[in-house]
């Protein structure tokens, strides 16, 4: 019996993931963890994240947001949420640079800033690793701060669609509850 890499559910009939030929996961679509892979597909890697796993970040060079900032924010979020647990090794600067065809200095800038923040740590001759949880577990207010750009985007879209505050809040609450259900079901299934 194989365990689903996305939610660790054990199922008698595993399916192949479309994202990786070696990954098994248990259903074709639903559930946020399965369908919204950009945010969650790191689940597939958490146990075996090694320097070869360079595809876990989504970097778009043509965005107005500098690449180092995109990388910085993605790693910060993944660490804050525990998707990248302490001790996880990050891809080397060269691997990540070649894979995404982006300037290596951009990557080292992001890594260095995260090191200064205490999110990552560098040990001699070893890849960058996620620092100990006790030091990086940030306060809710700090984590909320990271949500701000996304809230701004939501706000912008809502304004353009001429939706009222109560309509947006209601929709958000519904989504929240729905995703809660999924998480509960997932925990129960473990």
């Amino acid at each position, binding site marked *: 019996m194989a365990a689903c890499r996305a939610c660790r559910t054990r199922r008698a009939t595993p399916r192949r993931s479309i994202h990786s030929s070696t990954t098994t996961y248990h259903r074709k679509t639903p559930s946020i963890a399965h369908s919204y892979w950009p945010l969650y597909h790191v689940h597939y890697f958490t146990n075996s994240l090694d320097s070869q796993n360079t595809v876990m970040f989504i970097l778009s060079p043509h965005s107005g947001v500098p690449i180092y900032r995109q990388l910085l924010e993605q790693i910060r979020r993944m660490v804050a949420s525990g998707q990248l647990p302490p001790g996880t090794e990050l891809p080397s600067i060269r691997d990540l640079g070649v894979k995404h065809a*982006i*300037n290596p200095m951009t990557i080292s800038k992001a890594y260095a800033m995260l090191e200064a923040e205490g999110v990552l740590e560098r040990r001699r001759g070893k890849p960058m690793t996620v620092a100990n949880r006790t030091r990086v577990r940030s306060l809710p207010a700090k984590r909320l701060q990271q949500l701000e750009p996304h809230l701004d985007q939501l706000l912008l879209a809502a304004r353009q669609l001429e939706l009222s505050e109560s309509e947006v809040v209601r929709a958000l609450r519904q989504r929240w509850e729905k995703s809660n259900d999924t998480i509960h079901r997932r925990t129960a299934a473990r």
Partner: protein
Amino acid sequence: MTPYIAAQRLAKTFGRKRVLDDVSFRVEPGDVVGILGKNGAGKTTLLELILGFTPPSSGSVQIFSHESFRMPGSARRRIGSVPQQDELLNPLSALDQLRVIASFYENWDSELIDNLSRQWEIDLSERVKNLSVGQRQKLSILLALGHRPDVLILDEPVASLDPIARRQFMEQIVSIAADGARSVIFSSHIVSDVERLANKIWILKDGRLSWQGELDVLKESIVRVHVRSAAPLAPDFTLPNALSINREECHATAVLFDWKPHILKDVESQLGAPVEIESLGLEDIFLELHR
């Protein structure tokens, strides 16, 4: 750290035409510099001055601490360059062309070149004159890479390459840059490639460097703002540091340079209206700087 290349108030005139004017810059080891500019902005002239093909009319440029125009052979051997028009020898086979250039260098890396010519699918047995434009360009790049130069200077190296070849080329540049001790300067009209590869950007406009600095800083300092006001805006409404501004009754869109997040609050309180910030990609920034 001593820079690999430094220029002070560099100028070049051809006859009465001033092609470059008051250009100063530094290139440090590990830098990947992307040069952007319209046709005729002076990109090729600038690269030729760095390479020492022609003396400056005034000012100076040094490479490895030597005046470019008078650099000794020892400095020249540390440079690799791909000219805009290739200088391949038509009668030779591609392999012989490689051998000719390799014979000039003691440290020619034949393993690297073998691997790359296979990976880039260059038919080495073919005569140079029978190669396609893209194949010629790939061969020119190989010739510039073989001696593992400390400084690589490329004048529109990917203009004739297909997207796959461009990607392979970019991976090669990234791996050179990852050494940390080698530098690349390249000009290109393909802004998206520059955006991936370069950490520093030079924007040439009418022979002057109208902007130079880190790409990240450029992206963070130029933004487009949208202002929506409840009351109609004054006809002379403007914003600080505006490169351009469009007004329509209650709505204005402006591109601002020297943007800092704290300006947002000032502007919002001054207007009493919400302001939306849109960050711009390099292509948009380039267009805005040329309005």
